[in-house]
């Protein structure tokens, strides 16, 4: 295999993995606080359509990303009110958020279906980008790729090196103890949920503003759900989220592998497109085979409503 093909596969893998990293790390924070939001798919869809529309009208992709972030956060706020203030069922509410977000985004996005955004240039890091094979893939990328790495580093620091991160984890493990020491459980859960929504919105905007760059109904195509599966697969550890996201990114660009290889294989494109979903099922099976893996790593109060006794 030529090195240029290898380089372009690596490049595409990293790009495909980036929205998964951003969304999954956002979900990770919410889940560490004990909030299971299955609405990532809907929040990403809203982020994608808001990002696309604002970029199209303003001509500024960064305003688009900001709009996507706000749209995702707004969606997660609805969810937060229902499950945190009104103590609704988190599984059902997350599902409702997905249905609502996918429907609303299709509705809002209808007029934009024939528009295309100009491609946003990559940011090239001098010298490093000249490295063979990995240079382009790692150091000549979209700004949001660098953002995903910064987010990862920030999250490691926040969760394991900072006091607020410790509080957040304590709330996810035992909200009643955290409450009795005096931490505002519900307020912190709100913030964690909003952060998760904001990240899902950015992930969605990345798809419509940088990746494709166009808007099509259903374009998120399960990435929100894959991100949720990724958090389970990563057993709630940021580093494994990073690795897992690139693994999935690699599976998603499988078509490139096939085209790049010299083999003359004639596989229907639908089969290759099904690979990420099948891979998700396979990794979920692997991770849940040992019952203790998930049970010991999941935040104890995940998905449980909590109401501080006044």
């Amino acid at each position, binding site marked *: 295999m030529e090195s240029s093909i290898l380089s372009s596969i690596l490049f595409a893998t990293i790009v495909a993995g980036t929205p998964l990293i951003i969304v999954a790390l956002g979900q990770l924070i919410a889940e560490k606080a004990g909030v299971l939001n*299955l609405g990532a798919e*809907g929040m990403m869809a809203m982020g994608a359509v808001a990002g696309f529309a604002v970029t199209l009208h303003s001509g500024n992709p960064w305003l688009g990303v900001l709009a996507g972030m706000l749209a995702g956060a707004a969606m997660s706020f*609805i969810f937060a*009110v*229902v499950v945190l203030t*009104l*103590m*609704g*069922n988190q*599984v*059902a*509410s997350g*599902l*409702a*958020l997905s*249905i*609502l*977000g*996918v*429907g*609303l985004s*299709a*509705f809002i996005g*209808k007029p934009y279906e024939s528009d295309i955004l100009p491609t946003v240039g990559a940011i090239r890091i001098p010298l490093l980008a000249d490295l063979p094979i990995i240079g382009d893939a790692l150091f000549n990328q979209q700004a949001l790729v660098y953002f995903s790495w910064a987010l990862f580093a920030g999250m490691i620091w926040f969760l394991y090196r900072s006091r607020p991160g410790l509080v957040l984890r304590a709330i996810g493990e035992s909200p009643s103890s955290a409450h009795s020491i005096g931490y505002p459980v519900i307020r912190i859960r709100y913030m964690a949920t909003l952060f998760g929504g904001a990240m899902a919105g950015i992930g969605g905007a990345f798809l419509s503003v940088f990746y494709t760059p166009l808007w099509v*109904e259903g374009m998120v*195509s*399960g990435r929100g*759900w*894959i991100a*949720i*599966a990724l958090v*389970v697969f990563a057993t709630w550890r940021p580093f494994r989220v990073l690795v897992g996201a690139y693994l999935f990114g690699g599976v998603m660009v499988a078509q490139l592998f096939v085209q790049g290889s010299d083999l003359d294989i004639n596989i*229907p494109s*639908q*089969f290759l*497109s*099904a690979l990420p*979903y*099948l891979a*998700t*099922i396979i990794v*979920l*099976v692997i991770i*849940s*085979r040992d*019952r203790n893996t*998930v049970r010991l790593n999941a935040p104890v109060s995940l998905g449980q409503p909590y109401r501080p006794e*006044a």
Partner: protein
Amino acid sequence: MLRLERRPEASQLMSYASPLIAIVLMLIGGLLLFTALGKDPVEGFIVFFINPISDSYGVSELFLKATPLMLVAIGLAVGFRANVWNIGAEGQLIVGAIAASAVALYFYESEGAHVLILMVIAGAIGGMLWAAIPAFLKTRFDTNEILVSLMLVYVAQLLVSWLVHGPMMDPDGFNFPQSRLFEESALLPILFAGTRLNLAFGFAVSALLVGYIFMFRSFAGFQMQVAGYAKDAARYAGFSAKRMVWIGLLSGGGMAGLAGMSEVAGPMGQITDHVSNNYGFAAIIVAFVARLNPVGIFFASLLMALLYLGGEQAQQYLALPSSISNVFQGMLLMFLLGSDVFINYRVRWKEAAA
């Protein structure tokens, strides 16, 4: 300051009232949405909710649209009662439609009732097979059934896309991604002349009856109810959790597959890659709004069907995208889950603590 206060016991009244509150809130949300879009809200309301059922043909269409929703929702409700979360009915419906279509195309130009009977069986088995995957993985490896059943929706969509672009494509169809039109023998008989309402509606009503008997008159149904309320109590009583996962997923899958069959052998008359109109997801909302009760499912399906028809009308007469239906559906479920708080809590006015 308004405060929520826990009720001494759950309010029976509120558990019936909260779906109605949610419907009213959805209507208000809809009026606001129409206003925000610069449409006359009254006209929007009439076009969306009144026009579709203003004549007897419209009413028959309402029942036609409600049929797959009833089928899927009753199947899902059986599992949801025991907290078995089958979210992939959309995929199970598609696979049922594929299996039924395979029978129809295999017996192309063949006469006789055996074609339809085999299609019904194939549809149900197809849906059950697709649901058996998350059931097996859940019982064998404890793999999360929500994510697995959902991933299989995307796989099923790709599968049907491949089939109608390849093996099942109409040889005389100018390369359109659709199968041949089924022969008369592979179409469900129409119940009332001049309408499209077919025998599948009979299946749906029977399924609701069977579902009712299973839920409220059978021991297995009782076990699943107990498991839904108190998982540990069910375990101490020795009820098999694995069996419940299988029953829950297979009933949902079988009914979804039957719904898929009734679409291809009913209003569609062929298989295309748009075989499902989001029925698998809408039926989840139906099941919740109906409180997992068969009688409720009957009425909630009609309401949900009205939202579908209203969306089509809004597209035609108000120049709004038909996806407005999904917006209404999502709003309805969100409002329902929110207003459910009043089942266990009541609002009290309290002086703010100093």
